[in-house]
């Protein structure tokens, strides 16, 4: 009895420092993450900032009714899904292809050099990239000069409603594919080299080796990354679009996050904006939980 008591006391003494270590992070997360979750209540209020989260009159679902009767909301959701789905697909396919091509490079030095160059855009902010793109993609920017030199009509990459989403998708893939390939390159180095020798003895050529050895070898990684990317279904890419769009392309380029931002920060429609944000958070939550469940089921991946 006494021995057990001492053991329990020893355990408590041993675990207490762990709790102390966690404390600062717990406090900050409680305030800024959980505090803002509590703040979601303003989506159900006629909210006045000066009254705090619980001092404004409740209005039930009125903000949501107003939100979903706004004429542009359907288009905004549609734009968000189209842009984010295209980015998700491109964000898987292009890095995989790039990793496969890079894997054929024998020289370590060249491989490093290629990697360094393609990683660069990933580490720069959309502010700087937007500054560069508005310059080179403008009517008489360097890209259109080249297009004109080839005898074609200049393209309104950022001003034409129909082309703007394509520009967003392509530039987003451009920014991310290099760094996105890191995980596939790692998976490629993990493939058992004996498999290639066996395939060669069986008479398989390079292409057949790629199809029958390399691809199956990285398939689980591809599945994992695909499943995890599902969580981004409503993430159209705020930083990119906010810095590149103009009212002329709102019809095809406005996404939920930019919509929420204009509503909340520019127009001070706090409650309405929170309602739109809550809608996004709930849909995203469903997709994230689903994607983690699928990832666990099919790739044995767990977050913790």
């Amino acid at each position: 009895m006494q021995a057990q008591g001492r053991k329990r006391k020893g355990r408590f003494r041993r675990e207490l420092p762990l709790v102390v270590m966690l404390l600062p992070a717990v406090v900050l997360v409680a305030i800024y993450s959980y505090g803002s979750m509590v703040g979601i209540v303003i989506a159900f209020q006629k909210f006045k900032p000066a009254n705090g989260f619980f001092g404004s009159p409740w209005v039930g679902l009125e903000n949501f009714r107003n939100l979903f009767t706004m004429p542009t909301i359907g288009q905004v959701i549609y734009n968000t899904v189209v842009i984010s789905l295209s980015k998700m697909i491109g964000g898987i396919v292009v890095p995989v292809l790039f990793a496969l091509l890079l894997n054929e490079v024998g020289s370590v030095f060249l491989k490093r050099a290629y990697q360094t160059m393609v990683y660069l855009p990933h580490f720069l902010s959309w502010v700087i990239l937007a500054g560069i793109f508005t310059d080179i993609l403008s009517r008489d920017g360097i890209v259109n000069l080249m297009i004109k030199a080839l005898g074609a009509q200049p393209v309104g990459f950022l001003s034409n409603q129909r082309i703007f989403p394509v520009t967003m998708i392509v530039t987003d893939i451009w920014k991310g594919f290099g760094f996105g390939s890191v995980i596939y390159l790692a998976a490629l180095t993990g493939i058992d080299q004996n498999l290639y020798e066996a395939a060669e003895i069986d008479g398989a050529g390079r292409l057949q080796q790629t199809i029958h050895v390399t691809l199956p070898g990285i398939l689980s990684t591809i599945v994992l990354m695909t499943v995890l990317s599902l969580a981004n279904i409503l993430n159209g890419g705020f930083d990119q679009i906010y810095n590149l769009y103009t009212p002329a392309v709102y019809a095809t380029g406005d996404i939920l996050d930019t919509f929420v931002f204009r509503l909340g920060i520019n127009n001070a429609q706090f409650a309405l904006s929170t309602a739109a944000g809550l809608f996004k958070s709930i849909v995203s939550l469903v997709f994230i939980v689903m994607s983690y469940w699928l990832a666990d089921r099919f790739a044995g991946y767990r977050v913790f």
Partner: protein
Amino acid sequence: MKRKASRGRVVFLVCNYILLTLIALICVLPFVNLLAISFSNKTAVAANQVSFWPIGFNVAAYEFILNNRQFLTALGITVRRTVLGVAINLALMVLTAYPLSKSPQEFRLRTVFSWFFVVTILFNGGLIPTYMVVKYTHIMNTIWALVLPGAVQVFNMLVVMNYMRCLPHELQEAAYIDGAGHYKTLFQVILPVCKPTLATVTLFAFVGHWNSWYDGMIYMNTVDKYPLQTYLQTIVINPEAFFRNATNISEELGKFLNLVSARTTNAAQMFLAMIPILCIYPFLQKYFTTGLVMGSVKG
């Protein structure tokens, strides 16, 4: 494995090198163009003659900027928020990852605390509620608004935690038997072997703070409190803004006016803002795979 390459293989390899070189160029040429514009004179730039090599080489745009308070103030704020922010990020990341890397047998509350943090990945309050919390905690317009709301980077913390869990258990046991407490174990035994993953998450934290513009825009009321990227955002949205302001205020900058324009000074400012990143990420490249991949896919 080695054998004489067939003709088809040689053709493939040549095409592959050409393709990869093109891809790599597409990734860097926009920045070469930016650099070339920043060193060119304004007439060549206005006539769209500058592609990848400066025309009328001069450094007036850089002198113009470095003589201007606006850019330097913003740079100073960014340096401060980055140093402070990364230090806090890292400290909290390490102090959180270590307890959570314990098994539930060693640390009974582990599961509860893990969920406490993971929930914030799954769900968040969104823009306005977060903004209101920052307002109610009275850190608006101070550097803390740029540091505290994102102080706990849960995703990076999980990467570090998973890395710690993959370390051989004997390490901690040996330290325990030698009588080391948790702090000693963490700082003298665990952290030294976590170098690859710490290098990666430090880079991410650094890049995150350096590149952050959004928080500056919504939490800072006046332009002179903007960090560098927020300030740059104002000139991206309105390219003439900086240049017009700068020439309005100061006469000593007048001597540059026949060489520089809004486009050259903006290019120079953006390039200067890229330099720290250019100097750091290539050297940490070798850690990406070990630090990132081993961390996220559980063994």
